[in-house]
């Protein structure tokens, strides 16, 4: 194997432009692949976050000031949907939340008092499918002024993310196919260029594995380097943008990205890139080195 690695390295070193082209196409493919993987995982986390958040919020008129006044409606909701959780937010609590969120803006704090804000009931369901029934109950409850309903937001998000995933998958399939053909062509050219060497190897008793090994390893290395380079770029971008995104997305538990998770992504990327590279070179060997 050390000799095979040496030969592989020589193959790559002696045709640096072809090697660079192969690594670049693999980098592009893996860059898009890793990006969509992270986007997909991130969006999954975002969806989970949104689904855990209060999805139906009923705002009461000023007559409702304590949780006891809405006991009946809470019981009714729980009876119909045992898995839901409810939380009553009094006017005073609403003011505290408001003050906390706007502590940096004294002008906004001065304008609002507890009386300005309505008491509310936040209801969280495990499934978006439970929301319509809860919405109906709250809408028909006395003293409810308004009901905020997140179903449409979640559904729109699911639909958008589904389209992004499908588009990403199509793009990845296209790029993987391009990478396969590029590696096939490059390795095929190298096989043609080295046909004298291959002939001599066979005549002196080289096994099929000995002849083919360096070409397969070369494909693997193109995938390997492509994965490592693209991962490094992506992780670099994440590290740079994280401080800027934390104020907006900190609550989602997505950022900062765990280094352990990123190492897992690196492992998976190297494996995926290596497999694509080996398949590309295997196709070339199969096509040009039959016997």
């Amino acid at each position, binding site marked *: 194997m050390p*000799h095979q690695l040496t030969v592989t390295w020589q193959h790559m070193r002696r045709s640096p432009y072809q090697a660079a082209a192969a690594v670049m196409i693999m980098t592009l493919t893996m860059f898009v692949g890793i990006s969509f993987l992270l986007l997909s995982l991130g969006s999954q986390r975002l969806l989970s976050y949104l689904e855990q958040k209060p999805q139906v919020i009923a705002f009461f008129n000023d007559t409702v000031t304590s949780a006891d006044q809405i006991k009946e409606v809470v019981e009714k909701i729980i009876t119909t949907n045992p898995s839901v959780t409810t939380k009553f937010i009094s006017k005073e609590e609403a003011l505290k939340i408001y003050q906390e969120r706007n502590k940096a803006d004294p002008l906004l704090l001065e304008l609002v008092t507890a009386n300005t804000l309505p008491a509310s009931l936040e209801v969280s369901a495990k499934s978006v499918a439970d929301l319509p029934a809860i919405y109906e109950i709250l809408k028909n409850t006395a003293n409810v002024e308004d009901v905020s309903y997140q179903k449409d937001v979640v559904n729109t998000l699911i639909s958008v993310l589904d389209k992004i995933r499908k588009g990403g998958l199509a793009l990845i399939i296209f790029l993987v196919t391009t990478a396969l053909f590029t590696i096939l062509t490059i390795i095929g050219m190298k096989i043609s260029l080295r046909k*004298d060497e291959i002939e*001599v*190897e066979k*005549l*002196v*008793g080289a*096994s099929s594995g*000995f002849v083919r090994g360096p070409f397969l390893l070369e494909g693997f290395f193109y995938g390997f380097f492509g994965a490592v380079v693209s991962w490094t770029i992506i992780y670099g971008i994440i590290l740079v943008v994280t401080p800027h995104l934390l104020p907006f997305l900190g609550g989602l538990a997505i950022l900062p990205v765990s280094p352990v998770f990123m190492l897992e992504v690196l492992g998976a990327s190297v494996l995926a890139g290596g497999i694509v590279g080996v398949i590309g070179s295997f196709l070339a060997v199969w096509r040009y080195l039959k016997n």
Partner: protein
Amino acid sequence: MIKFENVSKKFPDGTVALEDLTLEINDGEFVFLVGPSGAGKTTILKLILREILPNSGTILVDEHDLKKISGGKVVQLRRKIGCVFQDLKLLPDRSILENVALSLWVLGKNAREVEAESKEKLELVGLAGKGDFFPAQLSGGELQRAAIARALAGNPKYLLADEPTGNVDDENGWKIVKILEKINEDGTTVVMATHNPEFVDKLHKRVVRLKDGKIISDRRGKYRE
């Protein structure tokens, strides 16, 4: 042992290279294949190495029936045979040491063994100081000897040499023949195709004379008797 039984070889262009040829070469022998160009000398060597297959007849090299073996058995066969090709087949982008080492890498030897044995073989053929040279930097005689060194790497049981003195002067040619003679004395079966009478006559070994793909004489002695 190498055994040809009623072997015929006809190329696609219609050329008859061998016709119903029967030949037996015992282990440890030194055999000259002589005859004019087109007599079938190279074809015999190519058949032994299984570069080509016969149209009819049987070829046995040790336990291998060359018409029946494939894949891994061909690899095993070729590892028993060292070959000095007519066109040498030295790789121009590899040093002489690397060319010799190739025959050892395919055997799966480690780096230390490969380096030691490659140097030993270069020393045997008188190229000890030229391992780092590339083929373009060597003379014709040196190239022939480098090809012999590669053929000898791995200590094959059989050595096939196709016109190894073809492109060199008499002095270098004689050096090459003496190397082959020494290898044979060490136990390697040598089959050498040549049309140079001088070397054949001096060595006084078995001479198989060919003409138009047929054996016209097979005895110990001189080029023409």
